[in-house]
């Protein structure tokens, strides 16, 4: 495929579609990846998100061809490449350690994939220059990798991964070693570049914010299994399980068995509180009394007020009582941590203006609308 040198290298080169069908990878009794199936549309930016050890790297290496899956197939543009060796998959890859060749200059590093694919020297030079410009490092051709900063190495690694216009770009925690500010800058740049080139990207990260900012879709992995594969918004608003809810954004998870009140409403029993359920917010099947559920309440959905002195039960459909244990200022917002009588904690976020002055130790009342909560199950 890549030996066809007349292939258009225009910026509109479309990315490939990628399908994983029942991919599994076992190491003895360890199921590093356990029956993962997903489809990535051409040009999409997909992030594999999961805790350390959840199988992200293993899955990426199966896609790249470094690892043979124990079961399942990898299809690129509909073609089964499971048995195709790494060097014939026409993939670009950015490694976490960047894997720049220390004995080659920046220019020769970037020209490497072109040279391996038989391109002539004169042609290579122009593409190298272009690639360096696209990662904002013009004129760095003759530097050695050891003379570059971490961010510059990352950019060179990126330039090297895209210079041969692969149809698929794989990145394994590409920003993991960089400081936060640089990470944010590069997130935007990588995203822009991949969009301009129309690349299909599979990015690996354990940073939920990065996943949120960059991805068209997120594949959420836990213990080698695919928990949820959806857009960031959908995973945030409709997490299929408590695991999914906990991974994307802060979440308060209330667990229990549903009961039906006399008036027919479903409630979750809560000490010093009352939690009604809106059946329309259920992610899976319609909930019923006796179901074991997890109710997800996002910190921004919770209102907080001083507890009235009278001790009367509030009439709100959803409320909890607790003692304010900490107030944390986070830039333009405030994070309140409320300790419940049973020892659990509820996190509340609110903007700074027009709110009552909260001090640790105060008894507070937390309220929210049942429509803002999500009813899901333990995963």
């Amino acid at each position, binding site marked *: 495929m890549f030996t066809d040198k007349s292939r258009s290298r225009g910026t509109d080169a479309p990315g490939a579609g990628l399908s994983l069908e029942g991919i599994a990878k076992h190491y003895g009794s360890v199921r590093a990846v356990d029956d993962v199936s997903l489809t990535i549309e051409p040009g999409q930016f997909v992030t594999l998100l999961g805790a350390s050890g959840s199988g992200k790297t293993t899955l990426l290496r199966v896609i790249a061809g470094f690892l043979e899956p124990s079961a399942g197939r990898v299809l690129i543009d509909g073609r089964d490449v499971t048995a195709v060796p*790494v060097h014939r998959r*026409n993939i670009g890859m950015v490694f976490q350690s960047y894997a720049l060749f220390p004995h080659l200059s920046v220019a020769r590093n970037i020209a490497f994939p072109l040279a391996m694919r038989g391109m002539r020297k004169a042609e290579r030079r122009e593409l190298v220059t272009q690639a360096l410009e696209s990662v904002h490092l013009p004129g760095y051709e003759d530097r050695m990798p050891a003379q570059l900063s971490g961010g510059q190495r990352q950019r060179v690694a990126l330039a090297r991964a895209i210079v041969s216009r692969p149809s698929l770009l794989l990145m394994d925690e590409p920003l993991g070693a960089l400081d936060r500010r640089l990470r944010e800058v590069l997130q935007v740049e990588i995203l822009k570049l991949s969009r301009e080139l129309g690349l299909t990207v599979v990015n690996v990260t354990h940073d939920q914010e990065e996943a949120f900012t960059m991805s068209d879709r997120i594949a959420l992995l836990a213990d080698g299994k695919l928990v949820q594969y959806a857009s960031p918004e959908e995973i945030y608003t409709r997490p299929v399980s408590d695991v999914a809810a906990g991974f994307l954004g802060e979440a308060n998870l209330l667990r229990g068995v549903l009961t039906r009140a006399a008036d027919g409403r479903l409630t979750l029993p809560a000490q010093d509180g009352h939690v009604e359920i809106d059946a329309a917010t259920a992610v899976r099947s319609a909930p019923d009394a006796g179901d074991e559920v997890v109710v997800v309440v996002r910190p921004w959905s919770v209102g907080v007020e001083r507890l009235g002195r009278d001790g009367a039960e509030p009439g709100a459909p959803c409320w909890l009582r607790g003692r304010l244990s900490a107030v944390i200022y986070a830039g333009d917002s405030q994070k309140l941590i409320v300790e419940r009588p049973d020892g659990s904690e509820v996190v509340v976020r609110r903007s700074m203006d027009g709110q009552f002055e909260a001090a640790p130790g105060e008894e507070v009342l937390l309220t929210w609308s049942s429509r803002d909560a999500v009813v899901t199950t333990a995963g």
Partner: protein
Amino acid sequence: MTSPETGRRLRRPDFWTLAGLPGLLFVLLAFGVPMVTIVVRSLTDPSPENFQFLFTDELFRRSLLRTVYVALLVTGLSVLLGYPYAYAMARSGPVLRTWLMGALLLSFWTSLLVRTFAWGVLLSNTGVVNDLLLDLGVIDQPLPLIRNLFAVLVGMVHVLVPFAILAIYASLRGVDAELEQAAQVMGARPARAFWHVTLPLSMPGVAAGAVLVFVLSLGFYLTPALLGGPADILVSQSIVLQVQQYLDPGVGSAMAVVLLALVLAFLAIASKVVGLGRILGVTGKEGTS
């Protein structure tokens, strides 16, 4: 390439410096004194004409050239044979690595004499190899496997290849396996990935191993004496001949001095190119700069 030791040498003596003193003293007495004696003797027993004699002596010149020739062959073979072994050791899993390392150390722990005699038993006209080939009817005359260059090379390479392996292994351990994988993603067949990435990055280890093996080969005595032919002797054998047969320790000392000068000159050049610390294995890991 400056080694980090240069800065360290300037520090005031600490515990380890003091702890090293007895060893230093021992080396001075056991090594320095005899060496000075030899140098003095080469000049005074009976006179510096010892050297004049050497430079006109056709036999000595031939043995010197032959020594360098054999050392080069041994070096080349040791690196060629040692590299794949070191590579397997650097890239294998813990189990295989332990076995490979164990086999290596076993040969280190076995006495040089035993190993050399073992080759004698294997290679002699009535030895294991010839007996087997004769019995199988592959040959009807014993092959000349001993008392020639072949036997010397086999014996010396066997003794010296572990040094090459360890030097190359140390270097390969510093080459991230991910680099080779990166090359493969970029379209390089595994062999090309090795050729363009791993091999050049491991060259410092190859050079260090080669220098080490070469220098050690120059002074080899026992193996060439036991396995080599009587006609083509090496410098070390010439020295022994001078002292034991011709009873001329002055000329023998002069030969030893020439050999030593050769080694030092070579090391001086090699350390410029490779870095002495690396040759001596003081700095194990290669920097990327």
